């Protein structure tokens, strides 16, 4: 029996549809196009007509055009970026984020799609919630692809109805926030999910090894007297999961990889042909555990900020392809909960609006990765991991585009963010790149407007 969830009364929705403009007839003029196939075209014009890419041609200077012209000189046009790991708090904690406020946060950050993690309240472990999410976001500029829980209520005891959930629209399964502790259950999940070619996304953390932990276990935690979450708590579960994936032939995706040991384990497993992929977050390649010395709870997340050697290993993993995707793990929390002494505050920070800027600052500008690499890790690879077709910049395709200014310096202001929450450690940072516009589903949005 199907029972439709009623939309809760969300008041003061910051974003209404009025800022979304129909892409009837838009010219992206003089753009640099970066495609999924590693090619780069400078000075091209893209004509979008009724939401579809109508023409792509070398820029022709000024000529009469009846529609809207978007000057893309110096701008990069990507196929629409996806963040395959976000927490929008609907249903359950609409005070922290709704599907639509999260979507707007994503749009402001230059994304056209996101995968929502299932730790909603109630947990996304049944058809009704998946359908509620899809219905709520139907025809929205920002596409939401729900990830369902692996186990009922994320309790780690009973498999969800995977076939039905895939049928409803779930694109992956994860008990994100914790690992599936029971190895037999995870084995079953890896075997069963193979039938649908969807990944099992594991938050890798041995629950016993992190008991009482608030931050990475290292010399900083020793100094601060805060409970440690050792890197090996991640490593031991990654090792187990890779063994299970190898044994079952299942498809495993390692969420927010953060340790040197885990990166090395994934690298070796890939060499052996295990069906494994991995993702990393901007904060894990930007910050170290030294930041926690401030006792500011905006530096508290799970996995925790690691020490220098782990940060370097994550960057190396991104560079050599061990880490396939960049995700934000966007985790909004209310001010009342986050504004507290460190150990009392919940784990997690927002990430959608700062991701591109941090990627430019930490990876592209220092020459570690190119924008082509970034498009792989934020478009082609994540879609491929999810078994979906990535958007393409091709005549006849839906205009699903992210337009960014790679030299558009801006200052992060948590009070101006589109997210309903303000828990970012990057407030006040000057970031070197920003999103300009996004196109998807027949609509577009100009970020600065």
């Amino acid at each position, binding site marked *: 029996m199907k029972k439709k969830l009623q939309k809760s009364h969300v008041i003061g929705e910051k974003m209404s549809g009025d800022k979304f403009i129909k892409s009837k007839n838009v010219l992206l003029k003089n753009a640099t196009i970066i495609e999924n196939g590693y090619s780069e075209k400078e000075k091209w014009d893209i004509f979008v007509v009724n939401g579809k890419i109508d023409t792509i041609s070398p820029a022709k200077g000024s000529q009469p055009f009846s529609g809207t012209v978007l000057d893309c000189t110096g701008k990069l046009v990507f196929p629409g970026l996806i963040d395959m790991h976000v927490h929008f708090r609907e249903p359950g904690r609409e005070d922290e984020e709704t599907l639509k406020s999260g979507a707007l946060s994503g749009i402001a950050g230059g994304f056209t799609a996101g995968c929502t993690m299932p730790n909603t309240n109630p947990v996304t472990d049944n058809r009704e919630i998946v359908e509620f999410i899809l219905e709520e976001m139907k025809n929205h500029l920002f596409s939401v692809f729900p990830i369902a829980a692996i186990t009922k209520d994320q309790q780690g005891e009973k498999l969800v109805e995977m076939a039905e959930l895939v049928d409803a629209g779930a694109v992956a399964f994860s008990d994100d926030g914790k690992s599936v502790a029971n190895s037999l259950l995870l084995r079953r999940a890896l075997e069963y999910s193979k039938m649908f070619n969807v990944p099992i996304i594991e938050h890798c953390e041995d629950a016993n090894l992190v008991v009482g932990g608030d931050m990475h*276990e*290292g*010399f900083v*935690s*020793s*100094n*601060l*007297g*805060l409970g*440690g979450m*050792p890197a090996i708590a991640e490593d031991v579960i990654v090792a187990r999961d890779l063994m299970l994936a190898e044994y079952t032939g299942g498809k495993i995706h390692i969420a927010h990889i953060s340790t040197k040991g885990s990166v090395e384990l994934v690298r070796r497993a890939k060499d052996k042909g295990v069906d494994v992929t991995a993702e990393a977050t901007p904060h894990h390649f930007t910050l170290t555990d030294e930041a926690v010395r*401030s*006792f500011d709870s905006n530096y508290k997340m799970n996995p925790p900020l690691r020490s220098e050697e782990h940060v370097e290993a994550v960057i190396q993993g991104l560079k050599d392809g061990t880490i396939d995707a960049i995700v934000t793990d966007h985790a909004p929390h209310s001010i*009342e*909960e986050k*504004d*507290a*002494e*460190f*150990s*009392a*505050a919940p784990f997690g920070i927002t990430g959608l609006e700062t991701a591109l800027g941090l990627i430019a600052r930490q990876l592209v500008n220092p020459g570690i990765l190119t924008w082509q690499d970034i498009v792989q890790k934020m478009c082609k690879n994540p879609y491929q991991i999810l078994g979906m077709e990535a958007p393409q910049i091709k005549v006849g395709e839906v205009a699903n585009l992210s337009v960014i200014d790679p030299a558009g310096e801006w200052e992060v202001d948590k009070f101006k963010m589109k997210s309903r929450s303000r828990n970012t450690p990057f407030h006040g940072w000057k970031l070197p790149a920003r999103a300009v516009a996004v196109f998807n589903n027949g609509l577009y949005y100009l970020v600065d407007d």
Partner: protein
Amino acid sequence: MSFERKHLLGLEDVSAEEITHILDTAETFKEILQRPIPKVPTLRGKTIVNLFYEASTRTRFSFELAEKRLSADTLNFSTSASAVKKGESLRDTAQNIEAMKVDMVVIRHSAAGAPHYLAQCIKGSVINAGDGCHEHPTQALLDMLTIRDNYKDFKGLRVAIVGDILHSRVARSNIYGLTTMGAEVALCAPQTLIPYEAEKWNVRLLNDVDEAIGFADIVMALRIQMERQTQNFFPTLREYHNFFGITRERLDRANKKVTIMHPGPINRGIELDSDLADDEHHSVILNQVTNGVAIRMAVLYLLSGETQE
């Protein structure tokens, strides 16, 4: 020298000059405490709040007495952290303190960093009276004052801290303070209770208590929390006592003069033999308590910004 600091949150970043200045100031207050009427008007008109979110007898009494001896107006707030909703009360309390125009706050809290959080919320000075497993700076200062009473110089002095280093704020503050002052510090504990990468503190790490006694001029025993055995940090209190307890036999075997210190309260017969704790020949534990008042007077005075010169 002038004292520039507004808060005393820990000793990790406090210089040798500052520590010496605090200890010297405490000496003058010790003299005042010997007078028939041991009270001065130094902090008259100042309002101090003692916020104790964690049970404490010794430290709370010591601060209260120090405040009274300095003629400050004091307010006391005691509760257990478990009695208030986590995270909620501290922000609210901070705002109330702001509204009441309090000059200084003495805070003890079970969460590391709680005093740092408070210091960002209010205009007045904050003194850390113990935050989680992080720091307990006034305890370490009174320990150092007691050491200075008995030994001329910290340089080359050997101090062994024995017990649950991992969970000890007293240990951390003493490690920072004593190494800053030039003492040689050894930490002795079961391996499970030695913090990760503790060697980076430039301390000696030992698992053998006889070796620690052999090394030390001063042995600082730490309180063992009963719940650590249920968390498997060590198998039983019995085994802990047998292998890490400071006993008369061990001191006799070492056959040397060793000063015994303990921040209290003592688990008699577990980390420290009862008769040793009371033996004036070895123990300076009650001197520590007396010095606590003088140290706290010195810290309150220096942070208040009052200068007599």
